[in-house]
């Protein structure tokens, strides 16, 4: 089993990747909410790039700079509509060298 202490953190993994960030134009936004749905809340664990976090006051926020554009968060909130999800502007976002 993995030794949690030595396993690389997601941020370190993302560090290997190439991105072209569209500064000031995040392609994913979480709509203002009081209490997140179970689906939105689960993104704090499920996002493969660790983009989602829980604030102290219990809301879910997103920082999409490291987003891998998989689409999981959109599917997890499709019935609640808590996330506004778009592709980054053409040419921006993650740039896979190998894929």
């Amino acid at each position, binding site marked *: *089993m*993995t*030794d949690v202490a030595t*396993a*690389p953190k*997601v941020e370190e*993994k*993302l560090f*290997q*990747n190439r991105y*072209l960030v569209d500064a000031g134009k995040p392609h994913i936004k979480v709509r203002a909410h009081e209490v997140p749905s179970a*689906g939105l809340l*689960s993104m704090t*664990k*499920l996002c*493969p*790039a*660790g983009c989602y976090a829980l604030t102290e006051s219990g809301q879910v926020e997103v920082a999409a700079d490291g987003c*891998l*554009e*998989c*689409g*999981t968060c*959109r*599917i*997890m909130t*499709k019935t609640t509509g808590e996330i506004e999800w*778009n*592709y*980054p*502007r*053409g*040419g921006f*976002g*993650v*740039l*896979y*060298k*190998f*894929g």
Partner: protein
Amino acid sequence: MANVEDKFDAIVVGAGPSGNAAAYTMAREGLNVLQIERGEYAGSKNVQGAILYADALEKIIPEFRDEAPLERHVIEQRMWTMDDTSHTGMHYRSSDFNEAKPNRYTILRAQFDKWFSSKVKEAGALVLCETTVTELVKDLTGTVIGVRTDRQGNPIYADVVVLAEGVNGLVGQRSGLREEVAADSVALAVKEMHFLPRETIEARFNLKGNEGVVIEAMGTITKGMTGTGFLYTNEESISVGIGCIVSDFAQSQVSPSELLEAFKAHPSIAPLIEGAEVKEYAAHLIPEGGYKAIPQLTGEGWIVVGDAGQFVNAVHREGSNLAMTTGRLAAETVVRLHRLGEEMSARNLKDYETRLEASFVMKDLKKYKGIPALLHRNKGTFFGAYPRLISQAMQTWFRVDGVDKKSKEQAILRNFRQTRTLRGLIGDAWSVARAWR
């Protein structure tokens, strides 16, 4: 968009294998084709294991072996059932696979798609990258007549729009052509690229030249979720990944990146990638709902190919070949109508569906239509209990410890029947057999 003429015979949305197959086939037959891709170049957004099945590409570009960036041809397939400390393997290796025209290759999608896109351009299509299609343009009757993009300018018009936009098919969804994908019919996969000198890879896997090995694994590595792990040898790297159904991740609350770390640390996997330098971490969805999840495929002025149409055979890990085949068949339909001067109406485009029915694509998807639901219902058994039982049986059988073989046999049977009643065992075998038919 000043430099783009305003009416094409066809617009293709996306430059993955399905879009490239469609654009290439139509352009080669003389149609005036515009292909739009949101990535910096074709492939820069795309992720695959990746095994390329030669047959589908050969039917489009017969001489591809001379030019395409291929990593290794596959001479050995390993199928592993894993528990936490072991794997039970079924390996098939044959020198027959060292044939003049090998059947399967490992590839790197970012590089492969870029090459395929260069062929599309050579065939005469106009390829516009760094451009995201934002919506379909319809006329008053609801017929699709073109697209709008995130670049400034007027809509771009065409007789037909081929939607090759992949699993996150926002254009089709937001235009009401199909529903959002359901969490229980799509898998999330994470993958890393591990670089090692080619001699090291060849020594570790007993390979010569460009021979390659692929490993598909299932078992407790997915922590009770429906999913599989994989490890593929490339020329100077190893692709390692794992994927599970999204609704299973939601239920288990397991982090995908931690799941991959645990898979990499498994005693059967760790020595294979030891000392490698990791150069990329990727994530992508795989549509795995099978036949029952296929959406409407044609309409007035539009046609759907590849992952956007859920064309993946999850049982056999085939997707890119279905993408290329559906792209080609859609293109052949459009070319024929164009030649006859017929409209790209829903009725005429249905010919694509007839072609699909006659091909391996629909035959295979139909054959396995019961599998996704079966795995979903029995994930605890198939991805937990059975892998453990198999490992325990192997260990009981191979460990020499003074216990006689008859008692060992009885212990193994008892173990199976304690975990799964006899009815359960027979029921499982029966439902697998039925879903497999």
